[in-house]
């Protein structure tokens, strides 16, 4: 009976009038597929769901750099959400593909290849640890993908190891040294430099030693302390001699150790105490307390609104970042330069992608040309301030903030405009 339902009178309408037969189904289906293939691409882009831009980002979410990596992701996510809420890039949404490089260059290399081949990313915005940035730069070059570095500080990224595909929208040690040295020499003529004894510390030491000398000062001695030294007393106890200022170059927990032990040993009271802003990052200040009072430093971002920093842009950025950071870290740290540089790097990428009407990786050369020499103005996209992304070495020049620490908080002393941080380019690109 069930076999013969088509013979029933009631079935006439739905069967023999022939709404759905296998032959018709196949015919209509083939027609629809064919029509879809013939519809021009602009129509599909305009009326179909826009294909997102895939932005890869390598960050250390575990291992030695995990704490910083997690705050870096906050900045990136904040920028992506804001871009998507405002209509995306060229009308297409942004999709972040964030991978954990585990703070290891070997893992980073594997995951970079995975992002390129499996995830099919369009551009890369990320990179936290310099050794990982350096290890992955040839991969981005080989794959012809634009790599916007967001945190890595090593000088060589935009000098001896530079390549046409990698850009850095934040500062580097030579520029900071140029900006800070005049102040340092006013503070004291003779300096001793204590530094984290590895490549970043060493290159930063050299940059400051040069600039202090150029400005009429003198570096009378240096002390290298191995990375991760828990007890720095044996090294700090040897720091003595004829000098007036102690300059420190450390970051992360080494910065906390240095600040605490230099205070306990009376060094920070005995000498004028200055150093790299990474020591006094807001996440470190919680652990250091008031022991860093009197410390003078330079940084591209500090979470205060003194004088010229009392801008709506910085307020918007601060409020949103603080809210998001509290979700990641219940201790509620204030935004730092890692959040800032990731946030601004993705915004800069957006501007360049719109400028060159970037569609896919095939447009990489157009994107490179759009980024080269890019000038951006202080705004909600770039709360830190104006920036110039120099064509010759893909290094950005930005304003710098010199500040002192008092009562465990920042006090802005001086804003050094970006024009006063220029360093001649030292990069030769190979043919792209």
């Amino acid at each position, binding site marked *: 009976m069930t076999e013969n339902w088509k013979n029933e009178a009631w079935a006439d309408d739905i069967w023999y009038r022939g709404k759905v037969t296998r032959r018709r189904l196949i015919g209509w289906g083939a027609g629809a597929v064919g029509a879809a293939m013939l519809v021009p691409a602009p129509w599909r882009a305009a009326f179909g769901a826009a294909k997102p831009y895939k932005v890869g980002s390598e960050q250390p979410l575990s291992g030695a750099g995990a704490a910083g990596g997690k705050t870096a992701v906050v900045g990136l996510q904040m920028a992506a959400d804001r871009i998507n809420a405002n209509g995306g890039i060229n009308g297409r949404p942004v999709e972040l593909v964030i991978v954990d490089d585990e703070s290891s260059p070997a893992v980073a290399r594997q995951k970079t290849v995975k992002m390129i081949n499996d995830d099919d990313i369009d551009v890369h915005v990320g990179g936290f640890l*310099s050794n990982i940035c350096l*290890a992955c730069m040839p991969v981005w070059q080989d794959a012809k993908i634009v790599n916007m570095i967001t945190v890595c500080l090593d000088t060589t990224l935009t000098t001896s190891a530079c390549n046409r595909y990698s850009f850095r929208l934040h500062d580097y040690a030579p520029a900071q040294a140029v900006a800070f040295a005049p102040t340092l020499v006013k503070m004291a003529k003779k300096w001793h430099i204590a530094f984290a004894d590895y*490549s*970043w510390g060493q290159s930063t030491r050299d940059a400051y030693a040069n600039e202090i000398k150029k400005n009429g000062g003198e570096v009378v001695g240096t002390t290298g302390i191995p990375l991760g030294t828990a007890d720095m007393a044996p090294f700090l106890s040897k720091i003595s001699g004829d000098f007036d200022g102690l300059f420190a170059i450390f970051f992360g927990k080494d910065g906390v150790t240095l600040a605490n032990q230099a205070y306990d040993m009376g060094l920070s009271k005995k000498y004028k105490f200055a150093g790299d802003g990474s020591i006094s990052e807001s996440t470190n200040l919680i652990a250091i307390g008031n022991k860093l009072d009197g410390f003078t430093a330079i940084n591209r971002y500090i979470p205060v609104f003194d004088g010229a920093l009392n801008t709506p842009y910085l307020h918007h950025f601060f409020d949103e970042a603080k809210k998001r950071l509290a979700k990641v870290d219940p201790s509620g740290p204030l935004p730092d330069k890692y959040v800032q540089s990731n946030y601004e790097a993705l915004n800069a990428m957006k501007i360049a992608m719109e400028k060159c009407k970037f569609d896919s990786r095939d447009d990489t050369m157009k994107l490179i040309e759009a980024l080269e020499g890019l000038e951006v103005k202080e705004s909600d996209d770039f709360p830190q301030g104006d920036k110039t992304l120099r064509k010759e070495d893909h290094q950005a020049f930005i304003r710098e903030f010199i500040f002192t620490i008092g009562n465990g908080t920042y006090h802005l002393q001086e804003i050094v405009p970006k024009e006063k941080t220029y360093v001649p380019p030292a990069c030769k690109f190979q043919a792209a």
Partner: protein
Amino acid sequence: MTTVPLEKVRPLGKARLSHTAVFWIGFCAIMALLIVAPLVLPEFWRRFLTEILIWGLLAMSSDLLIGYTGMISFGHSAFFGLGMYGAAGALIAHSPPNLWLALFFGLAGAAGAALFVAFFSTRLRDIYFAITTLIFSQIFYVIIFTWTPVTGGENGLIFSRPHLWLPFLYDARFTSTTMHWFVLAVVAASYLFLRRITQSPFGMVLQSIRENEARTRAIGYAVERYKMVSVMFSGLFAGLAGVLYALQNQFAAPDFVYFLTSGDTVIYNVMGGIGTLVGPIVGAGFFQLVRDLLSRFFGDQFPYLIPLGMIFIVMIIFLPQGLLGFARRWLNK
């Protein structure tokens, strides 16, 4: 008096022949699969497979010590790293970069380190040997990490990849496929060489040292010399793995000289099967694959080391002979 019928002897000869034949058939089949693999695999998996072969070679080199001589080494990261830095130095110093020069300097670096470590550590046994090799590897690590002008310090060294240059025969840029074939050729040749060593009288003495060092010495073998040569061979092949890694990835970093790399090598051995040569390659592949699959299925931030550690513990309890040992036992049932 017992007599052995003639027909009973023949099958024994046949069995021996078939065992060799089975080995070569299996070897050729696996080689054929590995040769074809890069032609069908997507780019990521192609490179992934090449890296497994490189880590497998490192693990296989340490198997000569762990599995055949009975000496657990935590110094293989130093040999691997010096092979890598030796190759890096040659590739940076010589323009245009030369493949054979990189191989030569990489092997020379690893051999030098192996000789140094072997000279001081082979007089020691068991845990004392293991600790000494660990300390030596850490010394090399600290030197590489802090000697920035030469080694690049924490940042390591980046360099261009040389051409695949076979004099008078072939000269072309490496592609991921030709790199895979080159690595495969080196790893296969290394395996055959190490297999020959372990089956030679020299290899038998090594196994005798593993079983009973005092008795081996008592019957007149210069045990220290055998152990030194074993460490040197092992270090040389670990260095070769380092050279291959440098060629594949175009960078050398101090992280690879850190003792954790040696720890991974021991884990590959235990997982794959100690004293089998092929087992460590299987172990390296298993470890890398599980790690990748866990982060694919559970997300990139999944703490894969916890399940991997649990798998490792389960394997030690239930498969103490490793994956290859288990497979052998299962096949022989």
